[in-house]
């Protein structure tokens, strides 16, 4: 899949907030010198190819009274696929990565209440038979991401 320079410009712009107006893609297009139809078709194409995994509101469950937590499991390699399916099956698991470490499965829990983190971690332990380590954030220093445009 090839992204052209316009796609890269657009993807950078789309990582910032979309206007809350009737025709937000027309507004974004105006900023970048693109037509509304072009913006829409490029976003659709990038969603289709997977360059954009999702487009929409980023919810902060913590601000809604809920919580996020990074968790990890040391999964024996011969059990990895089973555990992955079991863990991913929890709707509270927002994303999940395999990493090259003894702690080889790292996922983020998002729950509607702060207590939900420990409860969900416990249910994952019961389901998988493996210990879940929880690494809640104590301080956040920065969040941002930009592709090279």
């Amino acid at each position, binding site marked *: 899949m090839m992204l052209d320079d316009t796609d890269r410009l657009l993807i950078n712009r*789309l990582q910032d907030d979309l206007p*809350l107006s009737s025709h937000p893609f027309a507004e974004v297009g105006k900023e970048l010198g693109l037509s509304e139809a072009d913006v829409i078709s490029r976003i659709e194409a990038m969603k289709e190819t997977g360059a954009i995994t999702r487009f929409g509101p980023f919810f902060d469950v913590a601000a*809604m009274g809920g919580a996020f937590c990074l968790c990890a499991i040391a999964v024996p390699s011969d059990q990895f696929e089973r555990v992955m399916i079991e863990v991913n099956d929890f709707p509270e698991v927002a994303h999940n990565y395999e990493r090259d470490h003894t702690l080889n*499965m790292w996922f983020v829990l998002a729950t509607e209440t702060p207590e939900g983190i420990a409860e969900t971690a416990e249910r994952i332990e019961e389901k998988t038979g493996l210990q879940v380590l929880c690494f809640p954030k104590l301080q956040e220093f920065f*969040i*941002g991401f930009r592709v090279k445009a």
Partner: protein
Amino acid sequence: MSVETKISDREIIAALQGGLPIVAAPYAEVAGKLGMSEADLVARIAAMKDSGAIRRIAAAPNHYKLGMVANGMTVWDVEDAQVAELGAQIGALPFVTHCYERPRARDQGWPYNLFAMVHGDTPDEVEAKRAEIAAILGDACHGHDILYSKRILKKTGLRLRKRG
């Protein structure tokens, strides 16, 4: 009470958590499905942004598909007294996308309290960035590791559990 205020934030979140439709008038389309006016939905979204419930309406890029093949979670064992100051410096580096202080799990062989996510086009590039972080932390750091991602196993964003 107007009809619109009977629609809960929860219903609005449920309608939006899969993403915003990529159409010319996306808020009008979602509002139509919820049975409310576009203006009312926009006002409710604006209120959720004010409260912090919605951080922003934006694209989530797939780093791999964008050619950023190397994604390393660098983890550092930093002096507690210095972690706030040094964490701020590391978080400000242009190649660090997420930076957090997290609790250690020493009994599990995990002495690290500072996490910094580093993306690069190649593993060498990530290694160079790791060295840059190590230089900044200096003697305040007692050990570190880097965990490369091998696979995305799931990436869905928020999903509310169904209430039944």
